């Protein structure tokens, strides 16, 4: 085990996979950084420090610093993967998916199906998500609701440094296309990471972040941290919560959710996306369909309102879920009679 930050776990995992498998290549804006400047390549090393040292180690053929052209990045990742490479592409902010949705949604996601199973497209698309930095409406969004609804794409949302490592290694070695959503607020968080160079976490297996008998809280990414804080606070009052970290939203570990709700009978879903047609509504529908008889109270959803992400600190705080909002939702389910 080694203690490291989430961003280091991501950087180190890609680096190790590039050493292990020469088919692994990285592409994106400023993944080297400083190309064509006095500072030269590696002046930046990726704006999230998730590709520091790559250019020097692997050179321009495998560390492809691109112009600001998200469609070309996404499309090139698809073309590289169809041609036998294992691209790890970075879309600098997940919000920019709006620029390149076609290449993900109509191309990468559908190749295998449209071509009758005769193609393999092992592309990994990394996208930093989430609010909390007052970056306003176009640099703060959660996009899990779009990509989880795309057949053909697997979607990963790691919460801990160890999960970032094990899930990213699995994503790179996986033969299907994977969208890997890294929460910007988690980059600087530290934790112990399994340093086995083959450490992988299989997709579709949720992590039980907290265990309790009274209420089930389902969350992913940064929302797991809020749920954990809320669960720890509630435990002081003798309220026990299962906190289920989904890890991957596609495939979805339905069993972990349903098994927990069968015990607790009460469900709170925490989601950073707006409240309509989202993970929160999806999981609520799942439980309403398949665990209806177990429910002792209406399902609670803790989400932002149906608005864009606002800029001002007070407004962004009002917009986002928080540990207090999660705790309030848990208490509300318990008060229902």
């Amino acid at each position: 085990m080694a203690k490291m930050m989430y961003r280091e776990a991501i950087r180190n995992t890609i680096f190790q996979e590039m050493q292990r498998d020469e088919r692994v290549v990285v592409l994106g804006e400023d993944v080297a950084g400083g190309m064509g400047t006095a500072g030269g390549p590696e002046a930046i090393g990726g704006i999230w420090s998730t590709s520091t040292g790559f250019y020097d180690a692997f050179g321009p053929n495998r560390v492809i610093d691109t112009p600001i052209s998200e469609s070309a990045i996404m499309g090139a990742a698809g073309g590289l993967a169809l041609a036998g490479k294992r691209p790890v592409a970075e879309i600098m902010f997940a919000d920019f998916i709006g620029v390149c949705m076609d290449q993900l949604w109509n191309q990468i996601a559908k190749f295998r199906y449209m071509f009758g199973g005769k193609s393999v497209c092992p592309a990994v698309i990394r996208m930093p998500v989430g609010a909390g930095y007052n970056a306003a409406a176009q640099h703060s969004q959660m996009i899990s609701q779009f990509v989880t609804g795309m057949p053909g794409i697997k979607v990963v949302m790691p919460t801990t440094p160890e999960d970032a490592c094990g899930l990213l290694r699995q994503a790179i070695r996986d033969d299907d296309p994977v969208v890997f959503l890294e929460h910007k607020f988690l980059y600087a968080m530290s934790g112990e990471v399994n340093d086995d160079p083959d450490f992988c976490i299989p997709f579709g297996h949720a992590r039980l972040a907290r265990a309790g008998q009274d209420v089930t809280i389902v969350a992913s990414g940064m929302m797991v941290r809020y749920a954990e804080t809320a669960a720890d606070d509630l435990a002081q009052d003798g309220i026990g919560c299962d906190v289920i970290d989904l890890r991957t939203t596609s495939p979805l570990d339905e069993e972990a959710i349903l098994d927990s709700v069968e015990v607790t009978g009460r469900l709170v879903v925490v989601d950073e996306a707006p409240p309509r047609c989202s993970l929160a509504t999806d999981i609520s529908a799942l439980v309403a369909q398949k665990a209806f008889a177990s429910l002792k109270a209406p399902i609670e959803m803790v989400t932002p309102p149906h608005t864009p992400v606002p800029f001002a600190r007070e407004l962004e705080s009002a917009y986002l879920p928080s540990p207090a909002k999660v705790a309030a939702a848990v208490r509300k389910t318990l008060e229902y009679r």
Partner: protein
Amino acid sequence: MQLNREALTRAYRQMKLIREFEERLHEEIQTGEIAGFTHLYSGQEAVAVGVCEHLTERDKIVSTHRGHGHCLAKGCDLEGMMKEIWGSQEGLCNGKGGSMHIADIDKGMMGANGIVGAGAPIAVGAAISNKIDGPDENGKLAVSIAFSGDGACNQGTTFEAMNLAVVTKAPAIFVFENNHYSEHTGVDYAVGTANDIASRAEAFGMKVWRADGTDFFAVYDTFREVLEYVRTPGNGPAAVEFDTERFFGHFEGDPQRYRGDGELDRLRAERDCLKIFRASVTGAKLLEDVDLDTIDTESLKAIENAVQASRAAPRPQPENVLDNVYISY
């Protein structure tokens, strides 16, 4: 014109097969037997064949919604394609793709594409892969080709792809087939650099070529130069614009009210790449009419056989809808 008899025969056969494939589909679609949207390539055969006759299976192409010609020219199985268009389980894509999504990755055919302009970034990705793999024992790179029409040349994806190819010096070739119609709109209206798409590629820093796309030999000879340039490590991408003609509508069923009086008859009389090829090779006494007539007969028979096989081919079963979304899930 340096092709031997065998190569000339092959080129004509390929063009004729594409033509008859499309002409037969035009008839069959009217019976209602074939589902969905179909876009025919008749009139543009010299481009697909003049380009693809130079390629090997290491070279890759990405095609368009009007993709049958590119698929056949790149070596996709004719009967497998016909069965796919018929929606059979035995089609090249098991009936999952249809006319707009025919692909054969092993043949270097990375897909027709239902989204105009979507192919170019994918082709550049494959070209970057070619560059990573490096030159072969003869010092030559494999190339990746994006076929685009005059419609796709207005899409931002095409611009992004051209710039990325130049920046990364990827061995990509942008083949622009200007058939003068973007769906139902003329290039004089829709393309700011009307009838000069190549200048756009030039502005991105690429070496460009232009040729008459109805003359197989012009296409073939021009593309040899393009390929020689792009296969050379360090040169990066190039583009070529072929002036060509579309004999049918944008899609099958298109009433083509935008055509001028007698336009289609004139195009078929004066701008038919098969007629031009025949006149050229018989005039130069490289092939005789009887040789070409034999190919015509054989082509019609091959198409007839494919149609009959498609009609008899097994249909997909409802449970097949779930196949091949993921490799593992």
